[in-house]
């Protein structure tokens, strides 16, 4: 392979993500966390390559590198060959490997978009910022980055922060689970928040896990099948309650997530009025994710009770998603300005 003598190292990015590649292939070429330091060394050791960073998440695998090869196409081919060799892909798998190959400004633009959450499955999600930071840190510790990639990643983090601070792309919740958490946080101090699941469906598990991950105090699970309640409670570090006992314990919890398969209302105004009397007006959030609904809508008229059914949660999540989409143009503008500022492109 021909190397350019004394030339400035060229930036290259080779990647695949949830848009280009199905999960069956993505999981085949994902780098386990412990193997990333080894991988960055392997990338840097490729002929003509000087630096390397490997970003591997459940939604994407991306290799960022610098090289001094004359032909950028050769650099791309070299990285594809590396992936094929590294993961011992059969010929048909290698042929099915759809990747994006980006150079110089395109690679920088892509990294800036990734770090800002614009390339994520959930637009504006913030987790990717930390994942990129961790990937860079691993490469830095492994000694596989130098001037060019160090500068690029620092610039990317600056852009990510700028997008976060100057737009509302990362604001609001776009999933039912995170909307439930937002609501719980605005009713109670989450650290003192006791949660009860009435019915042990998948959706209520997701909501409960979101609450626990954000610091909810404790969880009680009650289900018609007590074994299922015990199983879910054990999994989440909570306690199980027999299904004929949940009504009596209702006044002790601050958030109720209901998802039974009952064909009629199981939480009625009379019951909630009594609960509120015992709670001395302490606010109560009820999330009804059952279809048909478990909670009589009249419950929302009771003072201190805030009732949200699945449609209300979904409407909030959809509204927030639309707000984020409206911010996209502003984010792209910031990225273009930053690309110009850092000299990747001429002034936009």
């Amino acid at each position, binding site marked *: 392979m021909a190397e350019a003598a004394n030339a400035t190292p060229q930036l290259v990015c080779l990647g695949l993500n949830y848009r280009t590649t199905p999960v069956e292939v993505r999981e085949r070429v994902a780098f386990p966390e412990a193997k990333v330091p080894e991988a960055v060394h392997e990338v840097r050791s490729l002929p003509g390559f000087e630096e390397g960073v490997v970003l591997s998440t459940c939604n994407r695998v991306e290799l960022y590198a610098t090289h001094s090869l004359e032909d950028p196409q050769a650099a791309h081919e070299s990285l594809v060959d590396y992936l094929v060799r590294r993961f011992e892909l059969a010929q048909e798998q290698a042929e099915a490997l759809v990747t994006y190959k980006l150079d110089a400004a395109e690679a920088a633009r892509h990294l800036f978009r990734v770090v800002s959450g614009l390339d994520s499955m959930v637009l504006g999600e913030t987790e990717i910022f930390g994942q990129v930071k961790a990937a860079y840190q691993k490469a830095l510790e492994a000694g596989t980055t130098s001037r060019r990639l160090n500068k690029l990643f620092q610039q990317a983090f600056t852009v990510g922060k700028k997008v976060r*601070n*100057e*737009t*509302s792309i990362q*604001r*609001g919740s776009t999933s039912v689970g995170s*909307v439930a958490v*937002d*609501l719980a*946080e*605005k*009713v*109670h*101090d989450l650290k003192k928040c006791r949660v009860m699941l009435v019915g042990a469906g998948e959706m209520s598990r997701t909501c409960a896990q979101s609450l626990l991950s954000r610091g909810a105090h404790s969880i009680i699970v009650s289900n018609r099948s007590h074994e299922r309640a015990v199983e879910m409670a054990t999994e989440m570090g909570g306690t199980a309650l027999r299904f004929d006992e949940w009504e009596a314990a209702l006044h002790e919890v601050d958030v109720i997530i209901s998802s039974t398969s009952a064909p009629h209302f199981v939480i009625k105004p009379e019951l909630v009025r009594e609960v509120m009397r015992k709670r*001395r*007006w*302490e*606010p109560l959030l009820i999330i009804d994710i059952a279809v048909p609904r478990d909670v009589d809508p009249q419950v*929302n008229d009771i*003072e*201190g009770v*805030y009732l*949200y059914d699945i449609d*209300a949660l979904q*409407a*909030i999540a959809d*509204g*927030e998603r639309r*707000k984020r989409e409206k911010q996209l143009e502003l984010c792209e503008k910031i990225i273009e300005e930053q690309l110009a500022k850092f000299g990747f492109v001429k002034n936009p």
Partner: protein
Amino acid sequence: MTADRQLLALSTLAFMVAVIPAVRALLSGQWRTSRQWLLMLAGFALQTGAVFLRGETVRQCPMKSLSDVLVFTGWSVVLLYFLVGPTYRVSLLGFFTAPLVAMMQLLAFAVPNAFPDYAAKAKVDAWVELHAALALMAYAAFALTCITGVMYLLQERFLKQHRIGGLFYQLPPIQGLALAIRRLLALGLVLLSLSLAVSFKLTTPISNPKLIFAWGVWLLYAVMGVVIWRHVLSPRQTAWLAAVGFIIPFISLWLVTTHG
């Protein structure tokens, strides 16, 4: 314009300007309290300077005329905002405090015969000064109770009507607001009780209307305290009471300074 009034005018301007970044932040959905906090701090520094210079001019704590009472109460409100805001995690309190204080100070300039000269006192009675200062600090606590009540009612409305966005994300949890109302009311009541206790030590007599109004306000908030403590009313009703109840001390300030 005297130096104290120049400082007061500047501080009023700072409080008015402090509302602008907050409104802009709410409209854009990007909430950053730092700019507003700095403007509040600047307003408070200027306000403190104004109160100090006014005290030097009248050679006593400036709390005798309606305009002075409004300024001193406004100063106490901002002082309490800096003291209790972080404690109760009610950072948005500044958003509501700034216009209230700006309005009080504008009113102080607008009242007839604003900032009059005081008749020279032979001797300053420290107990009278303490009594008045504690009473006005108590009124400031009631003003913050009123603001917190408004915040509670807004958050309650957002939660009930599923209006999630903008201000909703900035307001503290509804349970925290209910707690803040209880604590601020208790703080105001303790300060006013101390002020009234001090009044028994006074050698200089206080006019009857002043004492009657002070006891009237104390009674109102004591009843509110009992109502809250006994859970007679729901938090929403309590918030209404806290918000609307401040009208009474506010009117009493005007009455005691103009007719006392």
